[in-house]
């Protein structure tokens, strides 16, 4: 240790991480590009029964499943006869810190306390910061949250300002940074200086915490509808929400349930750009995370990411910012629930997808999030207007992220855009070879089997992709 320059700290990344996680990822590494994913999840994770017990201690989970009857009726009015699935939403806003992220934080904080860490650190501009702070308080741990908050003009994104306030309300130290991926450097340095636990979103603990969400919603749908959910919609960003939910569904035996990821389309906006930072009205749940984290999960702040969405995703769709704001307004006005907006990304996609499904089918949107000052559609759209974004009613297909936000003129204009999963799968395969510095021709059979598991396809798909490279 000692040197604090950017390159010196980054060079110590692995040793800092090992100490800050109490986990040796080397144990799970295999030859070639392989690693033992299930082994890692089992060894470092907890069983669903253990997680439920941990979460009961800190009041996480057992959130209500609410049927959105009016929104379903609106979808049915637009659908063909006999079409229009029942839409349910899991009201995750009723977790202690106001989002499903409490599930992720609960297991990390439990583990950190068990291992004798004095505090926890998380790098997050989202709801996860508040979740970590809240869970850490119940486990008597100190918290530091590292946020990317403001641009070079010193202007903070209102939603992130609110999340920072919430962390401070829980008694956290909040480090608020300007735009840039070197936030990771500050994060590493702070881990090293404090010896605190890295409450990363992407450890097996974080993912195990979400498994209860998939498990619970299956139990609730079975009790209410006498069947398994036909589809579950998940807002997709870093991949943890999707991975954990899918694993929970599988553990509950809901093997025929389709898992659909949805992200807000922010194509064209650069995630590391100072100029673009305050031109987006969604700070998470968007394609700027959703696509890169699907095609290369190991870009995360841990050596191996436990969130691996391509293993589980059956379909991936995008929706525009204006459509999410429309449905957020609809949720308040038709269902009497003020939630989101970012957490309503999957709900917006659900409104369109329900129209493709039969009336007797059940579609579950697996989260809501709290709303508040800064973190509200009025706050976000007022801020967007002040930043020169053109906001109007119209056809959402005319949207240009960073230039305009188009609120659908009619509800029938709400539609999802498909992202071709095979393209993402091929991109993942290319990335895996590139990052492991392996030529396609030198892969062993076990590597090919591993890749097939990673992208949830058969071996012939992998071989065909390799030939195309």
């Amino acid at each position: 240790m000692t040197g604090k320059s950017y390159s010196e700290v980054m060079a110590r990344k692995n040793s800092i991480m090992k100490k800050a996680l109490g986990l040796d990822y080397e144990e799970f590494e295999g030859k070639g590009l392989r690693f033992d994913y299930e082994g890692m999840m089992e060894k470092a994770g907890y069983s669903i029964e253990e997680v439920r017990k941990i979460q009961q201690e800190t009041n996480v989970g057992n959130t209500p499943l609410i049927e959105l009857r009016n929104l379903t009726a609106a979808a049915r009015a637009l659908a063909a006869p006999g079409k229009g699935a029942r839409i349910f939403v899991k009201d995750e806003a009723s977790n202690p810190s106001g989002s499903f992220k409490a599930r992720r934080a609960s297991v990390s904080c439990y583990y950190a306390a068990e291992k004798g860490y004095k505090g926890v650190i998380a790098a997050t501009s989202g709801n996860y910061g508040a979740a970590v702070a809240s869970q850490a308080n119940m486990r008597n741990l100190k918290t530091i949250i590292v946020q990317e908050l403001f641009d070079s003009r010193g202007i903070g994104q209102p939603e992130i300002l609110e999340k920072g306030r919430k962390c401070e309300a829980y008694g956290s130290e909040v480090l608020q940074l300007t735009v840039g991926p070197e936030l990771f450097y500050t994060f590493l340095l702070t881990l090293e200086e404090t010896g605190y636990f890295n409450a990363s979103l992407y450890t097996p603990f974080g993912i195990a915490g979400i498994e209860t969400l998939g498990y619970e919603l299956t139990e609730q749908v079975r009790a209410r509808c006498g069947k398994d959910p036909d589809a579950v919609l998940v807002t997709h960003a870093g991949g943890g929400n999707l991975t954990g939910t899918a694993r929970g569904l599988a553990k509950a035996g809901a093997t025929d349930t389709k898992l659909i990821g949805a992200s807000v389309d922010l194509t064209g906006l650069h995630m590391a750009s100072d100029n673009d930072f305050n031109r987006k009205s969604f700070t998470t749940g968007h394609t700027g995370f959703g696509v890169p984290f699907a095609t290369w999960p190991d870009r995360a702040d841990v050596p191996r990411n436990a969130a691996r969405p391509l293993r589980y995703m059956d379909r991936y769709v995008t929706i525009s910012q204006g459509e999410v704001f429309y449905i957020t307004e609809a949720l308040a006005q038709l269902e009497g629930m003020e939630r989101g907006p970012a957490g309503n990304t999957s709900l917006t996609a659900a409104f369109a997808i329900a129209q493709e499904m039969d009336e007797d089918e059940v579609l579950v949107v697996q989260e809501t999030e709290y709303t508040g000052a800064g973190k509200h559609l009025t706050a976000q759209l007022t801020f967007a207007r002040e930043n020169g974004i053109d906001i109007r009613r119209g056809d959402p297909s005319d949207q240009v992220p960073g230039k305009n936000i188009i609120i659908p003129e009619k509800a029938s204009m709400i539609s999802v855009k498909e992202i071709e999963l095979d393209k993402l799968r091929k991109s993942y395969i290319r990335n895996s070879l590139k990052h492991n510095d392996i030529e396609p021709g030198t892969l062993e059979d076990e590597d090919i089997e591993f890749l097939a598991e990673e992208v949830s396809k058969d071996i012939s798909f992998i071989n065909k992709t390799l030939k195309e490279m």
Partner: protein
Amino acid sequence: MAAKKIPAGTWVQIETVVLEAGNRAEHLPEDTKSHPLQMWVKGYLGEEAQIGDIVTIETIIGRHLQGKLIAENPPYKHNFGRAIPELLSVGAELRNLIRMGEEK
């Protein structure tokens, strides 16, 4: 007029430069790379000082950090903004859709 002295122990905000513009990571867009990476953090002021001074603070969890004093107990200014006229009618439009079974 002499600048206002802020007493030790006051809840304040400091700013530090984490990386100078020239020391930032490679592969960043130019609009980001041309600015320093800055950080804000709040804590109790260690010694009497005035805005602009380099000071040490003790954060809420007891860490000591150094930086330029930029504010005394800064307010949370984020709010709900204004009503959005483009969205106000959405409820009525959807109720009409449900009642009529089709869009106007």
